[in-house]
């Protein structure tokens, strides 16, 4: 039966994907992108990957929809129909697809427990996580400790994106350099959010603390259930974005000011790095958490908690900074 669930969802996914490419209304494409992401997340859930599903939902349906919309508000809603290189595109794409499909002709085993993927490195984690760090969520264990260096890299990818967007959008368009001073009152007028809509505002205000609370739960419960720093950061950022949508940019910036966002961004990255360096100073390797406490298992748990906190801080800081950077810009 599960088989058919998968087939059905994949079919819907492909339909949505085609519709996203075909529509000339970018706004519709972005909304279908939300559906795409929910479908993808459900498929991940069916494939036993709840952590990934949570991330995909938080990122795809939440953050990336908001970012796309913010960018659309600054650019154009409609695509001009002008298809370039159609033949070239079809040739390249078909070649790639044939190459990919060619690979399946050699008894690739999916789902087979004896396939090479499932016998070499993967099972080792399942067998040894309990012994080394005694936390139930193996995904968090690998993410935090066994491959903690990857996660450090991931954190810095997000950090780079944040730096990049702040840097790019820090530039003022040339034509209204002199109008820059008048820009500020204009934007506070247009970004007052849904102030006049009573019901969404009431419900929203009720939900903001709940979302934040839920984010904290995901953050600190990541060792026991799906979730962790990245998901938590995205959810917390979504909560504050909701507040900004309801009450306006200015209000959200009063609650979480710009300097605090910068501090979160840099602080999270520093926290992660510090955990690594402290491990080194205490005689271990870089990012070795076993030395953080007398008992190596406790040390691992402390380390994972701290680095997840670092990831959560940076991610929420970066996503909010990016959102504000987009939202604070008036249409040129």
């Amino acid at each position, binding site marked *: 039966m599960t088989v058919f669930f998968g087939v059905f969802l994949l079919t819907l996914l492909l*339909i949505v994907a085609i519709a996203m490419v075909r529509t000339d209304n970018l706004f519709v494409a972005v909304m279908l992108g939300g559906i795409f992401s929910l479908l993808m997340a459900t498929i991940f859930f069916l494939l036993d990957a709840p952590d990934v599903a949570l991330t995909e939902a938080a990122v795809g349906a939440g953050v990336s929809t908001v970012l796309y919309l913010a960018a659309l508000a600054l650019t154009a809603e409609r695509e001009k129909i002008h298809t370039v290189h159609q033949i070239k595109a079809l040739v390249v794409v078909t070649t790639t697809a044939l190459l990919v499909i060619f690979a399946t002709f050699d008894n690739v085993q999916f789902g087979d427990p004896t396939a090479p993927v499932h016998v070499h490195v993967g099972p080792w984690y399942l067998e040894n996580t309990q012994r080394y760090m005694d936390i139930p969520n193996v995904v968090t264990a690998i993410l935090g400790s066994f491959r903690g260096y990857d996660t450090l890299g991931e954190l810095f990818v997000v950090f780079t994106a944040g730096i990049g967007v702040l840097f790019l959008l820090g530039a003022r368009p040339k034509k209204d350099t002199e109008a820059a001073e008048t820009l500020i009152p204009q934007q506070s007028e247009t970004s007052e959010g849904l102030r006049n809509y009573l019901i969404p505002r009431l419900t929203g205000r009720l939900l903001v603390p709940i979302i934040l609370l839920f984010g904290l739960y995901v953050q600190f419960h990541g060792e026991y259930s799906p979730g962790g720093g990245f998901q938590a950061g995205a959810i917390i950022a979504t909560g504050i974005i909701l507040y900004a949508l309801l009450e306006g940019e200015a209000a959200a910036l009063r609650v979480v000011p710009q300097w605090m966002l910068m501090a979160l961004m840099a602080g999270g990255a520093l926290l992660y790095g510090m955990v690594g360096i402290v491990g080194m100073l205490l005689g271990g390797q870089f990012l070795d958490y076993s030395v953080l406490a007398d008992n190596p298992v406790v040390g691992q748990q402390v380390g994972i908690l701290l680095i997840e906190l670092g990831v959560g801080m940076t991610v929420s800081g970066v996503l909010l900074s990016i959102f504000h950077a987009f939202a604070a810009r008036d249409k040129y």
Partner: protein
Amino acid sequence: MYYVVVIATFATMGLALVRALLGPSVYDRVLAVNMFGTKTVLVLIVIAFLYGRPDFLDLAMAYALINFVGVLAVLVFFRTRAQREPTETKGKD
């Protein structure tokens, strides 16, 4: 019995998708997206029980919350759009 619910919900997801693809107005599409979101939450709940992993309800909770933010973001977008260019949002898709 869970299967019946899953199938019904899947069918509804398909119908919501039809509405999202047909439009005709953007509001219809927003409606479809919202509907799709709630249906996904239901499917997740049922599948969590079907697979015997009720601890994964966190996911459904996250979906319920995030979907709302997405829909509200769309509405705020409409509102700013309407203020800037009053003619544009009126048109059909």
